[in-house]
């Protein structure tokens, strides 16, 4: 009896298989470490090299001429804010509008086309978006401008916001819409005051994520906003941006500028990480409140 059982189809768990299993677990864990290592290194270096240079002067002054120590990136921080503001005035309404269209009116072939196009738009390299914004805005204006930079960033924001808005609106149960229709509320009013309102925190999440993604972009600003060593509040003039400034300083041959590049990068990463983390925290609390 025991003899025949030994020849059954289930192979005994050999040492080889067990070793392999453990090795693979080790390898996978090793991969995680290898991947998290650069992250830790980058954040560590940013802190280490950047924190010392962040002081009141850095945050309030404009760059000093080459060779002089000191100065800051105040105009770059302001410039990023200005460009983001311009980008969102166009990008956020269109993005949310397209998202509403896809969720409420777009469950058809035309909607599929728009959805597909939004995903395509998401994958366009940012430098190419810069070329397009250059061609449309810079050429017609005759000079670089914050407007052009804002246009480029708006193009990049729209697909992210659109898909996020659509996803959030689809999470709102149909029963909520029906309740409104049953009261004799018109469709547009239902969509805005009931459906969108229920999905509000999720939509804000999407918008903030789009912001975070776009705030760090450099390539599309290289020949649209172009950069500026001085304060600029005129949307029709070249404007400084934090990401541009970090780039310019990093590739320069001056140590003083390298030091400031780290500081600027630290500020940039803090702003972005802050936005992403805030969104994550809000998502784990706020979103659930809305759609249930």
């Amino acid at each position: 009896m025991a003899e025949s059982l030994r020849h059954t189809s289930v192979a005994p768990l050999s040492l080889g298989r067990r070793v392999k299993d453990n090795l693979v677990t080790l390898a996978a864990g090793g991969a995680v470490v290898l991947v998290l290592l650069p992250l830790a290194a980058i954040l560590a270096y940013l802190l280490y090299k950047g924190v010392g240079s962040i002081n009141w002067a850095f945050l309030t002054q404009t760059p000093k001429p080459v060779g002089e120590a000191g100065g800051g990136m105040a105009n770059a921080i302001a410039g990023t804010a200005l460009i983001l503001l311009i980008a969102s005035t166009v990008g956020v309404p269109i993005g949310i509008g397209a998202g509403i269209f896809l969720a409420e009116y777009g469950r058809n072939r035309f909607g599929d086309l728009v959805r597909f196009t939004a995903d395509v738009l998401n994958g366009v390299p940012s430098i190419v978006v810069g070329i397009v914004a250059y061609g449309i805005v810079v050429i017609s204006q005759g000079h670089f401008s914050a407007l052009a930079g804002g246009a480029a960033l708006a193009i990049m924001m729209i697909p992210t916001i659109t898909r996020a808005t659509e996803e959030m609106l689809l999470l709102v149960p149909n029963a909520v819409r029906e309740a409104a229709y049953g009261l004799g509320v018109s469709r547009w009013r239902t969509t805005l005051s009931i459906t969108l309102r229920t999905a509000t925190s999720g939509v804000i999440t999407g918008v903030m994520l789009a912001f975070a993604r776009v705030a760090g972009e450099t390539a599309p600003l290289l020949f649209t906003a172009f950069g500026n060593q001085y304060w600029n509040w005129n949307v029709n003039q070249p404007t400084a941006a934090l990401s541009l400034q970090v780039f310019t300083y990093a590739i320069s041959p001056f140590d003083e500028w390298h030091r400031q590049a780290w500081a600027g990068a630290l500020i940039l990463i803090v702003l972005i990480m802050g936005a992403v983390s805030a969104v994550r925290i809000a998502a784990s609390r706020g979103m659930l409140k809305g759609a249930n």
Partner: protein
Amino acid sequence: MGVGIKVDKLNAWFGKTQALHDISIEVPANHATAVIGPSGCGKSTFVRCLNRMHETVPEARATGRVRMGDLDIYNGTSAVQIRRQIGMVFQKPNPFPTMSIYDNVAAGLRLNGFSDRKRLNEIVERSLKLSALWEEVKDTLKKKSGASLSGGQQQRLCIARALAVEPQVLLMDEPCSALDPISTGKIEELIFQLKEKFTIVIVTHNMQQASRVAEFTGFFLLGKLIEFDKTEKIFTTPSDKRTEDYITGRFG
């Protein structure tokens, strides 16, 4: 006073599938009429045709004539306008999740442009009293959200919300099927009182409920109206054999 509904040869489709065949029925004013039948017989579809909710489903359509009093529901007015006069309570309570109790009840009025604050307060209070919820929530009207109430309370909130716009007819699509027996009892009691002011049509799969609350009952089967008569007669001496089979539990 409520008004009656007269339905004449109502047919309804979902795409190519026909859900209702030549329904003709007269729902009397200021009474409760029950609509019963096995699953899939078209009772929900029928009731949703009365306030034109049927057409919110893509590829759905209906033909025939439905009149509420003198008003032709399909040709005399828009769907949005008719729904302000024919209210609906759904199977699963669906208060607006981001709104307080007060805002929920006031929603139908506010979203349709009504803004008189003092009158709004009166209407909210009156509607909540009508739906027997006032005593339980009067202190937390604006603080608690509609979704934080229990199932039975939520449904009464939905009833109050529907009543706030002062409809003439109230449609109820299996309003108690998601509720516990105690809440069900409370709502049945409610229907009794509401009958005096409104015309009520209630879809139910619970025959005992039909006999408890409704004076008239219509029996639907496979999209057709088989029999419509006083509830007492339907349940004791039905004229059609199919009605009798359903009542006695031979199917459904």
